[in-house]
């Protein structure tokens, strides 16, 4: 296994997110992540799904029950922006542990950095550079950024200040 830098992992995560955005053919926020999880690309038919649950422990978590389709189990009573973000974050686990993801080598590469990688991936999936740039060109500002992209406040603040977003 080669060692990777944060910059290299972020580059790869941005492009993995971009691949899904192109699959969804979406050009404006909010990115319909839940819709994609419910109607996934054929290659992820056994890996993407959404199951609503009550939980006081987590907002969402991906699990792959034996011999069944993998799904993101999401807390039923969280706010819509937090649900949107949690689903995007857990999508990375679904991706890298899928048959295709393991075949690509994504599981080995990202598992040691999963927490940090999943958050970065979620921000890029929900607010890709091209949409953030367009938002800023429409004079969008920091205050309504989270609202338009359906990002929780903390994620919106981090994404706004990231390379590609702030420089756009």
């Amino acid at each position, binding site marked *: 296994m080669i060692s990777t830098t944060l910059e290299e992992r972020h580059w790869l995560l*941005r492009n993995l997110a971009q*691949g899904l955005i192109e699959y969804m053919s979406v050009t404006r926020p909010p990115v319909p992540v839940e819709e994609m999880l419910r109607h996934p690309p054929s290659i992820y038919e056994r890996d993407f799904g959404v199951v609503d649950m009550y939980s006081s422990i987590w907002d969402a978590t991906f699990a792959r029950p034996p011999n069944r389709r993998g799904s993101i189990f999401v807390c039923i009573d969280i706010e819509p922006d937090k649900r949107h973000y949690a689903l995007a974050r857990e999508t990375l686990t679904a991706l890298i542990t899928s048959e295709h993801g393991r075949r690509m080598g994504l599981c080995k590469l990202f598992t040691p950095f999963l927490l940090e990688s999943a958050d970065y991936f979620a921000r890029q999936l929900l607010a890709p550079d091209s949409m953030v740039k367009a938002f800023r060109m429409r004079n969008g500002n920091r205050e309504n950024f989270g609202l338009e992209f359906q990002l929780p406040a903390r994620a919106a603040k981090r994404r706004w200040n990231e390379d590609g977003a702030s420089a756009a």
Partner: protein
Amino acid sequence: MTMQALNQLVARSIIDPTVVDAYSGGKISDVLSLFDFSADMRSQLSGIQANTWAEYAIQAYGIVKVAEEQVSRITLPSPLEGLLPEKGSADKEQVA
């Protein structure tokens, strides 16, 4: 453009299994020819040895990044340019 082509290739690989199939089958050059890489870059990227597609992509990123940095260094004007006095005006000052 080359980094853009690599970005497109990697983005495609997450939903299109034929990219990874080609890589695993030793036929990545066939896929590279579909993207906007120069012949020299295609040759460099075809020669990468890696255990997985993800490792291949990371190594390709390093190669493309270095190549693009070299190009930008060549095309950027020297920072000294514009600071040197024009020859004509320097001559005039000497005469004065």
